[in-house]
């Protein structure tokens, strides 16, 4: 199972085994990782599951679709070139070892 590490804004981190096909958001919420609100439940409709994906992983995660791109304009902490919505990133074996950073807040 791919391992993904979530790093809190405070610096603390947790590594979780994520079943292939699950989204990063689901993995975080199911494991009680703080800092991912996901109030719409994964519908690409709320921008409260914002994560920062380091540049070296950018070509391994799925590309940003237009709906996600629009919503990234509405995150609580302004978007950066690393910004993604974790509900739109399905985990595959290619993402084994991924580390994502969480923003200071989601709302």
């Amino acid at each position, binding site marked *: 199972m791919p391992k993904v590490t979530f790093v809190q804004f405070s610096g603390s981190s947790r590594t979780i085994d994520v079943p292939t096909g699950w989204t990063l958001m689901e993995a975080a919420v199911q494991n009680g990782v703080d800092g991912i609100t996901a109030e719409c439940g994964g519908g690409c409709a709320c921008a409260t599951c914002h994560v920062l994906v380091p540049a070296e992983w950018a070509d391994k995660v799925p590309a940003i679709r237009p709906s996600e791109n629009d919503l990234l304009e*509405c995150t609580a902490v302004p978007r950066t070139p690393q910004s993604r919505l974790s509900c739109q990133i399905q985990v595959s074996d290619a993402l084994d070892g991924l580390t994502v950073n969480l923003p200071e807040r989601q709302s």
Partner: protein
Amino acid sequence: MSIVIVGAGQAGLQIAESLRRGGYEGRVLLLGDESFAPYQRPPLSKKYLADDMADERLQFRPVEQLTKQNIEFRPLTTVTAIDRAAGEVVLASGERVAYEGLALTTGTRVRPLPVPGAEHPAVCYLRGLDDAKRLRSQLASAARVLVIGGGFIGLEVAATARHAGKTVTVVETLDRLMARAVAPVVSEYFAELHRGHGVELRFKVALTAIAGNPDGSLTATLSDGSTVDADLLVAGIGVLPNQELAAAAGLECANGIVVDEFARTSDPRIVAAGDCTWHINRRFAAPLRLESVQNAVDQGKIAAQSLLGNAVPYQDLPWFWSDQYDVKLQMVGLSQAHDSLVVRGAPESAAFSVFYFKAGELLGVDSINRPAEHMLARKLMSLGISPSPDAVADTGFDLKTLLPAP
């Protein structure tokens, strides 16, 4: 000491976790009458029904995550009475559980079809996971699906059934879809959407009777005398608040369990939250009942604060969403009282918003395939910023410029 939460849906789970985050150190018991750990309901009419979602993906948390927070979750546990004098709830098993604080998050149940023949085995409803499992299995073998009710549940089921290649008819007693929630321009957009996908819409007729056929199918008779044959009938005609437990204990009830702006019932040791409450929100003059994730979560937080001894008034902005086919409808605010509206963008482009005003003040916004505009509307409304109808009508005007500088 213990806090007992009756009902393990979204509001119940929210209260349990908010109590722990708020530093409560006593026992927290989360009692659910279903066999499942707390799960998300919205996907039941969408992804889950379309059969590409396993049960465990519906769960909010694995049970171990609740245990880790020292939340005692008990499935298949029905509360039959509240003994307020003794400060105890009575379980169906006869066991009595003492509480220092009690939260009622009992939710709703579906309104049953009030017609002869409604007990036919091909009649389904959709509220909980058991309903969804039964509906999903019956949908798989059905060719013709009849949906009673052109509201959110009925239309989401219709879209899912149509996507699965079923013949779908929707019967609505009013003259348009989602009539209680959205403006005619939105109803019309969704009517065209469903028709475009091949759904037959029947307006201003009601179901009057259901008769079984020898092959297991049914024949529905409508108020205009016509009949519709179907292998599966799905009824989505609204829900009723589960308030009997509260009423039997002498708590005040109306269209739901009556709570104040702090989610407190008429007994100060008992709070209630979510779909089951007839509640006060500081944003609105009149009490209301809302069936939504937003209300479950936000009112749940308020209820937990009250149990912790902190009176925090409920004033969150309501929001809702519905997914039908590839179209996302998102709503913010309560728009029913509007006296004017402005459509921003073109319905023909399948991406537009409707801004509702009363006396020039923004009441709410419905967005179709414009999630960013929905989020922006939420930001504006939560800050009390009301754009003028003229500004909204001008698509060249960037509404974001109305936000205060970060």
